[in-house]
């Protein structure tokens, strides 16, 4: 038990936290810092101090991932480190998966608020482990190591590191488990737990951890990786204090965060327009037929409405008023993860070149309504895959900020959204033959780190090379993925046509892959992404959303025979209505219009197909340059039929020249025809309003749509009022779900 107060000037950590919160509430400045005295007195020393700490964290990350790390961490860099104040506010961060900078902040605050200072005690050399989203994390497969940093007898900060695990021992193998519907399905939980002392991880913890997950070697490697990085940060901070002095350090960490806050307000005034911005995003959970558990068998659409107010002082307020409720599914998202999410958006869009720390967190007023999917307030729900809701929801923020960037003239910064870093194919099995016979393998590639980016207002989106939420925009090497998912070698990986959102500037294209089960037994497979609804808030200024995903797999195939006879096998699914699977295989082929499925069992020679996301488009597709459409055809981004329907372009493939030839005259006529169709097939707004209202009052809405409106109206009087007012419905109007 700790007897001495660990805070500064004889305070406890809780007293320091309360004072910090009071000062920002009263002064609107972080820790009441209204004057940047260190920066003003000696700006070179101040900037050198920041750069040296920043360099230490980046160095810690780069070194640690090479010291010891699992393949996901090493290949795609799924880790990050941060330095925190004694109260848990981030001062400086490494590169990496930055959403966790603020989630670890929440975990430190949890430790303080739960008075760990008293029990179990916080001592030099202690090691804490956390993966509980309800007290500061995204999902349970993100695992954090936190250590306190002491100078003499005062706690002067925290070092934190996080890595993404392949498996945490949940109800099925994998890292975003569709089948988890409650906390007890999520796998092993460490709720800000002390797991070591004197810089050593306790043996009993490691024995327990190794027995709690399906990939114990990777777990242990990553624990060492995080601790190594944290210890390097601690050494760097102590060197910093030796060099600069403890008084300088204490003032510097406050000023650096206040500067981060001020920078957000400056950037907002420089690049946006004050006013009100709105967007809506949705996610589909078609679990009525998929779920194993009776209470999880419902079809649901999550409502993710976003309103942003850019205020006169350059501050931002953000609200998800009207959000759907949580549920017996893994997509529940804790408040800390949402706060980490908005922080990441700001660092990507507005403050990417400046001091990135929790100053950006303090610059935003947030409303994640309690009792909704984005702040359930219930630790017993499943938090295995909150990304399912968080990722589409925050496309709305990107789109809202883009309206402002466009109006201010910064068209090159406009991005209506990003592809869904989903359908991370998952599962696992046991080697049935070979040198690794009897060992488990996990199917968890991070190919998802290469999605299509949305178009901007001046150019097309990046093809299969962007990941909003992952640190490296990179598909990764097939050979590396095959190393640890040895039971599922690749049969093919190709650009997926017609995934790019349509527009004057098209979104980036996605890609697809085929895996074959081999040398294994007891193989589970599943995946998740958008399917029945489009991802996120869609395109902008007339651009369309990128295509949805779907599920395709083949069981009981004749692939062994095909290989023996050296015959053709499927390399993709370019036209889902006339599939290569059906043409080339004798098999039980399953196609589902949605993507999120509970695990299915595979035998050797079974195949699965997975599609990665394109990005949304910008502007009217009929304004796309004809030459750009020809390039799309030549590069396999779109097919002939789609460019005819959407872009009004008439083309034929020249087999001799091996390129697409455009009939320009016919194209211009086709475009005129499409304009005429717009006149003929559109309604006046009043007609449209009547047409849509009938769907509501005549009870023509489907069950999941009814459920979505019903939940949002129950959870938010404000949203219910807006809904009723727009459709001129009585004040007591409600929608019921049978």
């Amino acid at each position, binding site marked *: 038990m700790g007897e001495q107060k660990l805070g500064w000037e004889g305070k406890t950590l809780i007293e320091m936290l309360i004072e910090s919160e009071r000062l920002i509430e009263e002064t609107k400045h972080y820790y009441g810092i209204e004057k940047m005295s260190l920066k003003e007195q000696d700006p070179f020393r101040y900037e050198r101090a920041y750069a040296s700490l920043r360099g230490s964290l980046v160095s810690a990350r780069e070194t640690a991932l090479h010291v010891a790390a699992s393949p996901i961490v090493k290949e795609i860099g799924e880790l990050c480190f941060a330095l925190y104040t004694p109260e848990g506010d981030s001062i400086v961060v490494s590169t990496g998966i930055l959403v966790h900078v603020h989630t670890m902040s929440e975990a430190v605050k949890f430790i303080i608020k739960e008075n760990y200072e008293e029990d179990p005690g916080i001592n030099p050399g202690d090691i804490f482990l956390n993966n509980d989203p309800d007290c500061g994390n995204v999902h349970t497969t993100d695992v954090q190591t936190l250590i306190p940093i002491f100078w003499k007898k005062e706690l002067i900060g925290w070092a934190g590191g996080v890595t993404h695990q392949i498996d945490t021992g949940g109800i099925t193998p994998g890292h975003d488990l569709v089948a988890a519907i409650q906390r007890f399905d999520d796998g092993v939980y460490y709720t800000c737990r002390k797991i070591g002392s004197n810089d050593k991880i306790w043996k009993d913890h490691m024995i327990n951890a190794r027995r709690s997950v399906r990939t114990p070697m990777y777990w242990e490697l990553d624990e060492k990786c995080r601790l190594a990085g944290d210890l390097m940060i601690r050494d760097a901070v102590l060197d910093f204090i030796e060099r600069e002095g403890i008084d300088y350090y204490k003032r510097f960490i406050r000023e650096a965060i206040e500067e981060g806050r001020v920078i957000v307000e400056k950037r907002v005034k420089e690049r946006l327009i004050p006013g009100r911005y709105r967007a809506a995003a949705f996610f589909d959970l078609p679990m009525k037929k998929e779920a194993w558990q009776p209470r999880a068998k419902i079809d649901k659409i999550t409502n993710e409405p976003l309103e942003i107010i850019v205020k006169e002082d350059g501050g931002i307020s953000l609200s998800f008023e009207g959000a759907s409720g949580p549920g017996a599914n893994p997509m529940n998202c804790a408040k800390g993860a949402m706060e980490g999410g908005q922080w990441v958006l700001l660092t990507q869009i507005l403050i990417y070149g400046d001091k990135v720390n929790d100053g950006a967190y303090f610059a935003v007023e947030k409303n994640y309504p309690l009792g909704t999917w984005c702040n359930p307030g219930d630790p017993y729900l499943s938090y295995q895959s909150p990304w399912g809701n968080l990722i589409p929801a925050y496309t709305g923020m990107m789109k809202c900020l883009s309206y402002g960037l466009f109006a201010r003239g910064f068209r090159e910064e406009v991005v209506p959204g990003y592809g869904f870093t989903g359908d991370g194919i998952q599962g696992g099995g046991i080697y049935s033959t070979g040198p690794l016979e009897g060992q488990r393998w996990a199917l968890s590639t991070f190919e998802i780190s290469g999605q299509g980016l949305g178009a901007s207002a001046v150019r097309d989106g990046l093809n299969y090379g962007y990941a909003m939420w992952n640190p490296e925009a990179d598909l990764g090497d097939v050979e590396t993925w095959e190393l640890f998912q040895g039971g599922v070698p690749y049969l093919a990986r190709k650009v997926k046509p017609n995934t790019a959102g349509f527009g004057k500037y098209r979104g980036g294209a996605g890609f697809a892959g085929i895996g074959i089960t081999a040398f294994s037994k007891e193989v589970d497979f599943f995946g998740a992404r958008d399917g029945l609804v489009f991802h996120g808030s869609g395109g902008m200024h007339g651009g369309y959303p990128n295509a949805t995903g779907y599920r395709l797999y083949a069981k009981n195939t004749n692939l062994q025979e095909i290989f023996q006879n050296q015959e053709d096998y499927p390399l993709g699914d370019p036209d889902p209505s006339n599939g290569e699977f059906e043409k080339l295989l004798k098999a039980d082929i399953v196609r589902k219009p949605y993507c999120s499925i509970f695990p299915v069992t595979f035998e050797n020679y079974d195949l699965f197909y997975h599609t990665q996301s394109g990005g949304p488009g910008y502007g009217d597709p009929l304004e796309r340059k004809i030459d750009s459409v020809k390039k799309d055809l030549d590069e396999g981004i779109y097919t002939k039929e789609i460019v005819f*329907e959407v872009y009004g372009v008439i083309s034929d493939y020249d087999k001799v020249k091996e390129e697409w030839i455009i009939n320009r005259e016919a194209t211009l006529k086709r475009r005129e025809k499409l304009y005429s169709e717009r006149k003929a097939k559109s309604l006046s707004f009043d007609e449209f309003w009547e047409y849509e209202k009938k769907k509501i009052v005549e009870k023509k*809405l489907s069950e999941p749509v009814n459920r979505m409106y019903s939940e949002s109206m129950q959870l938010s009087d404000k949203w219910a009022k807006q809904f009723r007012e727009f459709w001129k419905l009585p004040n007591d109007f409600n929608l019921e779900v049978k």
Partner: protein
Amino acid sequence: MVEYDKKTLERLITGDLTWNELKPIISGRKDTNRFDMILKILQERVQWKEKILLPLHEHLYVVSKNGKRIVKCDCGYEFGDYRENWKTKCRVRVRDSAEQINQLYPKYMGSDPEWEEIREYFCPGCFILLDVETVPPGYPTIFNFLPDIDTFYEKWLNRKAPG
């Protein structure tokens, strides 16, 4: 201080900058006169005389007309008071059947109309496509962006807000 010449910004608007030209504009410090430069270029491009107060959209502008602020398309169609959602003056096409959605998206690659429909909002004057909403049937029309023009001009630009 960074500044770009008018020709460069005109080519930015038309999407004609090469990647080598565009990249430094994206990653560099921003030009502080951008708003005024873009406004000047846009004003020269439109065929009507009303003063543009704010570019709201690729084709829509908040303009000053007879002392009132209205939304106007570059084709000349006027949508009325900027504080009201301009979409409520649009022509709207609703794609709420699989057949209509699959005209645009291949089978399995578009939304299920029972879950989500596609709404296309056209300018009644020129029938340019102004916005696409993909929302569940019955979802209220979204009011994308309501700028606070007075605050922007008077507090941020330190100028008298135009009428």
